[in-house]
């Protein structure tokens, strides 16, 4: 059988740290080859070697369409028809959607100048082929939601007539409906004979899409199998090296008095007249489609976009929150949706990031206590199982899932009373996910009030004591745990306009 791309004995060492060990890998035309493994297993590194971002160690061989390379460059990758949608989005926020899609290979007029109208038309076609009719080719990418930015990335990869399309956790940022749309696109590409490398932590997706699956653990190849020969259990065991006890470990909640009461909260027309209560020890799940205003609600409560109407009560006292600093000082923490832009300062170390929202804990009022800072970070690393060389490692060098854990660690370091988490387990592997869920359960039991925004319905249903469903910027239903099911919540998410009250 022909292969489009083949790797033999590829290794990669970062600063003496061997993160890929003698890996073999190949992609055939018209297949979806899933690449799986825990956070930090080396998936993104493998991908970056294929796309020419990193050069592998000596000794390995990469064969693309019959040509052998010791190392790829972005140029040889492009020539070999390899296109990549990276885990961390790499778009230019100030440029338009069309400009981003065609950056570096824009269509030209016979005179050699950029052919703007063709560019916009082809961009339109590409987006339409992704079922993104609602995405404007002239919109600035910086103004788009994460899900839409992801679509632009995919369109960008497709615009280069890829024969091998690499997707590094493409659905991590997408809501269920968007995931469906993406899977349709992936299947269509497979029919056209494109070979697709698909990295994901989501098992159902992998079982639906993949033809073969390769598992990495600690940089070593554990195996490549046809999908029919593996089960969920065997796959998880291959990845983690042990069995996972329970998927949504939810301890018996210990719900106390109301800590946060929001009444008629609005921000322009993005958040409209929302009221809810949050109790000590409670996990309030917020469900809704992308664009339903969930993140905007969180931003309003956290003071990034201060409310234009309505009141917020903390412990029965009416307060107005006009800045993140104020929210933080009141004991509110927000783990944001976009970790690269809002959550982390990537060029700084883990220690510097973990302390950033809790600087008061690592100073004597004026001077930094560097030792205290390091131990604060060490605490977070141990508590969340962050895979790293140490507190002084640069966050940008961590794997995506481990970066997410740093954001979490940073906000837990503030010892918040109210923790708002926006897609808390995005890009986190199955093992670590259940650890984070366990931690959430434990924090709630200790009295923290948690708001969890999630696009993963099973996560919301598994962890939340109550589910607030949003649609079109307003809350359409509040459903308590006993009544929350994929049907009730799903229906409320897509039903516009009417309010369903199912809580007692």
């Amino acid at each position: 059988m022909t292969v489009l791309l083949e790797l033999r004995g590829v290794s990669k060492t970062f600063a003496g740290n061997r993160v890929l060990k003698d890996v073999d890998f190949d992609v055939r035309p018209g297949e979806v080859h899933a690449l799986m493994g825990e956070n930090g297993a080396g998936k993104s590194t493998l991908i970056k070697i294929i796309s020419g971002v990193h050069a592998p160690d000596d000794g390995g061989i990469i064969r693309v369409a019959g040509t052998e390379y010791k190392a790829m460059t972005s140029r040889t990758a492009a020539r070999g028809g390899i296109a990549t949608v990276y885990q961390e989005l790499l778009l230019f926020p100030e440029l338009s959607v069309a400009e981003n899609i065609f950056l570096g290979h824009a269509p030209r007029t016979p005179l050699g100048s950029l052919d703007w109208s063709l560019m916009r038309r082809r961009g339109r076609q590409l987006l339409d082929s992704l079922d993104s009719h609602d995405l404007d080719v002239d919109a600035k990418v910086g103004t788009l939601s994460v899900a839409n930015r992801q679509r632009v990335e995919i369109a960008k990869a497709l615009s280069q007539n890829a024969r091998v399309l690499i997707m590094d956790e493409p659905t991590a940022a997408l809501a269920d409906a968007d995931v469906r749309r993406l899977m349709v696109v992936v299947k269509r590409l497979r029919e056209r004979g494109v070979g697709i490398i698909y990295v994901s932590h989501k098992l159902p997706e992998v079982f639906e899409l993949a033809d073969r699956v390769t598992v990495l653990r600690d940089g070593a190849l554990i195996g490549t199998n046809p999908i029919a020969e593996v089960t969920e259990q065997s796959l998880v065991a291959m990845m983690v090296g042990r069995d996972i006890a329970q998927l949504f470990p939810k301890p018996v909640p210990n719900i106390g008095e109301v800590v946060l009461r929001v009444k008629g909260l609005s921000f322009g027309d993005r958040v409209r007249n929302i009221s809810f209560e949050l109790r000590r020890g409670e996990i309030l799940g917020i469900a809704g489609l992308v664009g339903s205003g969930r993140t905007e609600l969180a931003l309003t409560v956290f003071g990034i976009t201060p409310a234009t109407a309505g009141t917020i009560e903390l412990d029965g006292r009416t307060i107005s929150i006009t800045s993140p600093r104020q929210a933080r000082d009141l004991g509110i923490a927000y783990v944001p949706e976009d970790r690269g832009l809002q959550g982390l300062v990537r060029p700084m170390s883990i220690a510097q990031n973990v302390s950033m929202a809790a600087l008061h804990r690592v100073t004597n009022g004026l001077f930094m206590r560097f030792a205290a800072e390091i131990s604060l970070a060490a605490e977070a690393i141990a508590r969340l199982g962050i895979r790293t060389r140490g507190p002084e490692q640069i966050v940008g060098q961590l794997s995506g899932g481990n970066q997410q854990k740093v954001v979490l660690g940073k906000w837990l370091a503030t010892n918040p009373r109210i923790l708002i988490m926006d897609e808390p387990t995005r890009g986190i592997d199955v093992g670590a996910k259940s650890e984070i869920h366990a931690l959430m359960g434990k924090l709630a039991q200790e009295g923290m009030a948690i708001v969890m925004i999630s696009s993963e319905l099973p996560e919301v249903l598994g962890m939340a004591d109550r589910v607030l469903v949003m649609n079109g910027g307003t809350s359409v239903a509040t459903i308590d745990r006993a009544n929350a099911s994929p049907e009730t919540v799903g229906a409320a998410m897509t039903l516009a306009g009417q309010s369903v009250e199912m809580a007692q």
Partner: protein
Amino acid sequence: MTWRKLLRHETILALLSVLALIVLASQSDKFFTVDNLLNQGRLMTEVGLIAIIMTFVIITGGIDLSVGSILGLVAILLGVFWKNLGLPLPIAIGLGLLVGTLAGLINGIIITRFRVPPLIATLGTLALYRGIAEGISEARSVRGYPDWFFVLGQGQFLGVPVQLWILGAVTLVAAIILGMTVWGRGVYAVGHNETAARYSGLQVDRIKLAIYSASGFAAALAAVIFVSRVSTTRSDMGTGIELDAITAVVLGGTSIFGGRGTIIGTVLGLILIQALKNGLSLAGIKSDGTIVLIGAVLILTILLSNLFHRNGNR
């Protein structure tokens, strides 16, 4: 780990400075004399004060082009307050420093409140402040300051020029603030990722306001020392000093994109530039040649340090 990374550029720079000193010393026997070196320190102070604070500005990803004009404006006002308004000189100095700080604060307000990019905001005030200075002075110069005033720019303390003590103190305080305090940490965070800094509860706008005000203050202090050193006041004082300061900062390894930089680096950059200027002129090379050489050194150092930085990053 991070320390080593930061120091790498500074090490290159230090080696380069030593090399320059050796070469220059061999060209002229006047160069390596205590008198000459101290005198160079004197000449370096005004740019130095401005460059030290400019380091903060550039680390936040900003720039302040208006410092030269603030220097000129304060120099003129000093003369006006003292001579034309008849205020006691110490009060005139105090007022001058206040005006400089306010001018910086205005830059900060334009940048943070109205979201004007720093380059454009301070390009505007560069013209504005210089224009005001020229309007006030009407091309007259002020002379005849009392003798005690010249101590600042011409006197010595323990054998070292007075203004060098001031520069030393400012440098030390700045280095401590930037490298060891919570506030300094905030400066770096803002420079690398303003959004994340804001989401972390840092007071981004306040940090910037403080830095631009400090930049105005530094320019005003430089103005007072300048006037004292040359014993006269003119409205074109400080023209182009912003470029010298920025060159020293960038040569010192501060990233123009923000987030990276140290005070030590800036000090080394200042020393290297001053040594080149002085050494070359002693060796009889025209000032055009010196500028070309400084440009070449700037590009070379940045290239070298990028070369080392490439590995292991990202």
